[in-house]
Structures are given as C-alpha cells and as structure tokens.
C-alpha cells in the first residue's frame, strides 16, 4: 500500500527580530504553496505539513532550530533563511545530517553546498543590471550605505568594481550602520549625501531599518529625480513600511515585482489575497519562497521519496512556471535561472518595471569580476 502519511517539512522564517517583515512574507509565500499543493491532493496523496519555528533573525537560533528540525522533528527538507549570516549558520547542519535547505533570498554569491538549493538572485542576476542601468541614467559618482554585515561588504565590492569600469566612475563615500539602526543613525549619512551630491546612492541597508534611511532621505528634502537610491533589498515589503510617498522614485533590481503583468502572476496574487489578505506585500523573496516549494513538490513526485540521494537529482532537473517566468535549477551550481528586472516605485507604492530581461540569466555565483555592458545581460527597455 502506498504511503499516505503526512510529509513533514521544516520552515525557518523569522517573525521577530531585525528582518521579521521580509521573512514573514517568505513564510506566507511558503504556506500559500503548501496549501495549494494540499488542496490538490498533496504529494501523491500525502499531505504536506510545515513544522515552523521563529529563529528571531538570529544566526545562532537558526542553527539551533535547524538542528532541532532535523534531529527531533526528523524533517528531510527545510525552507528558510534570509540574511546570508543565517544561511551560514544552517549550512553545517544540513551538511552534517545530509538534508536539503531551500534558500529563497538574493545574496552575495560564493556559496555552493550539495545540500542547498538557492532560488534567490546571485550578483550576476541583479547587481550588474542595476549598476548598468543606474550609471547610464544618472552617472558614475556613487554613495554606498549598508547594514554592517557580510552581504553589504561583498555587494559593495562588486558595485565598486562596476563603478570603476566606467570612465569617471567613483565611490564618493561608504558607510555602514548597525542591523538594528534607528532613524538617528541616518541623520549624519543623509547630511553627508546632501554635501557630496552623488549621482545615485547604492543602499544595502536591509530589514526593518530600511524605512528609516529612506524616510531620513525624504525628510532632508533630497530628490529621487536627480539623486535616487538604488537597492537590491528594498522590496514591496520595505516600501509599505516606509509608505509610498517616501519610496516613490527610488529603484530596485530583482527577478520579481508584484506588478509583473502575466497571467501566472495574476493567478498566484489572487489566490494569495483571497487566502492571506493584506498580511504582507508580495515581493521577490516571497515569490522565490513560493516557487521553491513547487520545485520540491514536483521533484518529490518524480522521486517518490524525500530521501536526499534520490530527491536531489530530481530537484536539479526541475523547471517551474513561476510568477516571474519559467525558472530552472542549474545542476552545476544549485542556483536558479532567473529574470533580472529593474523597477521604480510609483506614487501608489508599486514598482513600475522599467527594464526587464527577456531571457532567464544563468546563475554564476563564483564570478569575481563582473563586466558592464555584457550583452548577454542586456535588459529590454519597457519605459523610461
């Protein structure tokens, strides 16, 4: 007789702590996919059951709870992690016990583990396109501001590298604030921006502190038309935290925006709103968290088991029609083929997509030197 027992999977998304808002959106994306799959009879009749903990945006709790999921709850597959520091904490656990982690967040690259599937953007799928776009529209004098941890350091290195490739390009200053930065932390930064007048600001401020930076910028009377903020992490969630008036005119590069006008995206958004209402704002991390559950479920159907040695080869052959377009796992490096896009926040707080890649870009997480003007990465202009 076929196994009809519920199938437990782990979910580690923080509902408290410095990145609670964005991780909560990832959690809801995950739960939506799980509910949809269960509504369609589960995986060959087996109901998916999420075992959830709140790791509170803290790497050591991530590590501890991942071990608990594996050793006590006995799950083979975990969905979760946002900051790369929390990914780093969970990696040794899934490697030690040979389990699988699905990681739905853009990050700075230079990772590969046999036990991890990366469904967020690598730098060659967002940073290059953002630098190219911002410098062609606004110029090459760039101010860097970020949260004080490893993702901003490496992202800024990549951005600086790209800026230096442009004649006359320069980094005018570089500042880091604590992860739990308060509005006060951005006062000096904004007045410095006012004095230095860069062409644009590259922000790698993450999490709930993001709103304080954009708000300080708006309160200082700076104008996004002449000196906008460009980011990889300011998504619809952070925009709704700061409000449309503060966010309007600033840019973000991501493979997904809720404003994508495709049948598949509309279907998923409708189902999400019916089920979860306005609990969160769909965004790129939410979308990756959503589609990666399907990558798992489809692979699981083909494999017939969630035993890692059988399941992993099936995941590595997966393709899925996600809200952003048809995504595919790259078997050589476990990252995902994604569609870079650039959005500008409009007066309603939605991202108007101004550039989009027609084709999925192959992930290249170990690229040290990115190049501006790589034609394979060229985006199509949708509107200016």
């Amino acid at each position, binding site marked *: 007789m076929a196994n009809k027992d519920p199938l437990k999977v782990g979910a580690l998304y923080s509902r408290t702590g410095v990145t609670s808002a964005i991780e909560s959106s990832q959690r809801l994306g995950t739960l939506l996919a799980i509910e949809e799959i269960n509504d369609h009879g589960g995986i060959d009749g087996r109901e998916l059951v999420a075992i959830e903990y709140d790791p509170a945006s803290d790497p050591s709790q991530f590590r501890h709870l991942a071990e608990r999921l594996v050793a006590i709850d006995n799950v083979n597959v975990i969905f979760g992690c946002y900051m790369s520091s929390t990914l780093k904490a969970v990696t040794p656990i899934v*490697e030690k016990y040979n389990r699988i982690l699905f990681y739905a967040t853009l990050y700075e690259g*230079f990772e*590969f*583990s*046999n036990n991890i599937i990366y469904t967020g953007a690598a730098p060659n799928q967002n940073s290059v396109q953002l630098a190219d776009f911002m410098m062609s529209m606004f110029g090459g004098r760039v101010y*860097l501001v970020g949260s*004080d941890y490893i993702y901003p*350091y490496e992202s*800024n*290195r990549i951005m*600086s*590298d790209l800026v*230096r490739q442009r004649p006359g390009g320069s*980094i005018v*200053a*570089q*500042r*880091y*604030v*604590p992860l739990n*930065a308060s509005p*006060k*932390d*951005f*006062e*000096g*930064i904004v*007045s*410095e921006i006012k*004095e*230095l007048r860069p062409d644009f600001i590259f922000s790698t401020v993450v999490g709930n502190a993001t709103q304080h930076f954009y708000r300080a910028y708006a309160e200082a009377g700076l104008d996004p038309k002449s000196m906008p903020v460009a980011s990889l992490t300011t998504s619809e969630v952070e925009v709704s935290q700061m409000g449309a008036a503060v966010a309007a005119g600033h840019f973000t590069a991501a493979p997904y925006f809720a404003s994508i006008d495709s049948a598949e995206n509309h279907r998923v958004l409708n189902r999400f709103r019916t089920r979860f209402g306005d609990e969160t704002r769909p965004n790129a991390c939410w979308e990756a968290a959503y589609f990666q559950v399907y990558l798992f479920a489809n692979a699981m159907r083909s494999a017939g088991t969630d035993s890692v040695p059988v399941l992993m080869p099936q995941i590595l052959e997966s393709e899925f029609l996600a809200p952003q377009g048809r995504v595919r796992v790259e078997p*050589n*490096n476990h990252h995902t083929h994604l569609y870079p896009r650039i959005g500008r926040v409009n007066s309603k707080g939605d991202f108007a997509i101004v550039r989009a890649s027609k084709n999925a870009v192959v992930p*290249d*997480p*170990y*690229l*040290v*030197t990115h190049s501006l003007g790589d034609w394979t990465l060229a985006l199509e202009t949708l509107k200016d």
Partner: protein
Amino acid sequence: MVKPRTPTRSKQCVVREAPQILRDLRSLRVCVFHPHDQDGQGLTRQLERIGCQVQAFWPPLPDLPEGVDVVFFALSPDMLSADFTRFHRDDAPPVIAVISYENPTLIEAVLRLGAIATVASPVRSFGLLSVLVLSRDWHNTVKKQQMRIAQLEAKLRGARQVAEAQEILCALHGISKEEAYHVIREQAMQKRVTAEEIARSIINANEILGVKNLRSQVP
C-alpha cells in the same frame, strides 16, 4: 571642501579592489590528478564552478601538460612510492595534495611531493577557493624570494671580487683602495661592462702575472 563627518554609530571602511590573483581565477589552468570517483568529480566540479580551466587525469601523467598553473594530486596510499621529481623542477607549478590519511607515513609523502597545501578527502566545496588562492599567492612569494636570493648572492660574490681586485691594484700600483675602485669603475664604463666583470678580469690576469713575477725573481 567637505568636512569629514562621523555619523552616529555609522562605520566607515574602504571597499578594496579584488586583487589580481582573484581576478585571474577564470583563466587559471588547473591540472587534477585524482581517480575519477565521486570525490574527484566533486573536486573538479567545484573548480569548474569557481570558473577555472580544469583538466583531470588518472593515473597521473609522467609529464605535466604545458602551461599548468596549479596541480591537485590525490596522494592515495598506493601513490606513496611514485616518482615526484617532475614537481620539483624550478618551473614546476604549486602542488596541492588531496589526502585521506594524516599519519606520518602519508605526511612524509606530502613533504616529498613538495606540496604547498593539503585538502582533506572527502573534498568539501567550502575551503577550496581559499586554498587555491593562498597556495598560488604563497608560491608566487616563494618564487620572488628565490629570485631575490639569487640576485643577492650574485651581488655578494661580485662585491667580494671587486674587493679582491682593489687589493691587487693597490699592491701593484701603490694606490689607495678608493683610487683602485675608481680605476675599476672607469674601466667598466669605458668597456660598457659591470665593475664585477672588470674585477674578475683583474683577478684572472693577476694569477697569470703572478706566475711571470715568480720567474723574474729567478737570479
């Protein structure tokens, strides 16, 4: 001019450019001598993910292919008595040993191989990039130091010869050491050779002249 400001709690640090040794990774030619098993495949694939040009062979080739920048060598117990001389030539690339044992017998072989670093088997993806970069950096440093040492040795030898030539000139012409040095420099400049070469000619000539002097002393 802009006044430097330190915003509250914000931290300034400098983004540094990736050093050339990291930029070179995509053109790096890596030769892997490892059995074509799961471990060997894992090693080759991670090197390919990093973006290196990888060639894998087993058993190890008697001669290294042209233009190899780094070699990974699986030092399995059956390779302990292999001939490692091709890795010891002056122009040999750095060798990283892949080891599955850490006993004195094996480590003795690592030393004999001339490995600059080891990677533990089973090979993990994490750590390979740093070992690759550090090994090349260290290898380059050692090469530069070897060249510098050779230059310094030559210089020291030259200085000794110049001193000897000075003494010969002093004895022969009754001039001071400084004057003797001046004569050597003048000669070197006229003939467009180094002072060391002039010094050597003086020493050689003196040996021959010395013999003549002996004969002239015969009554």
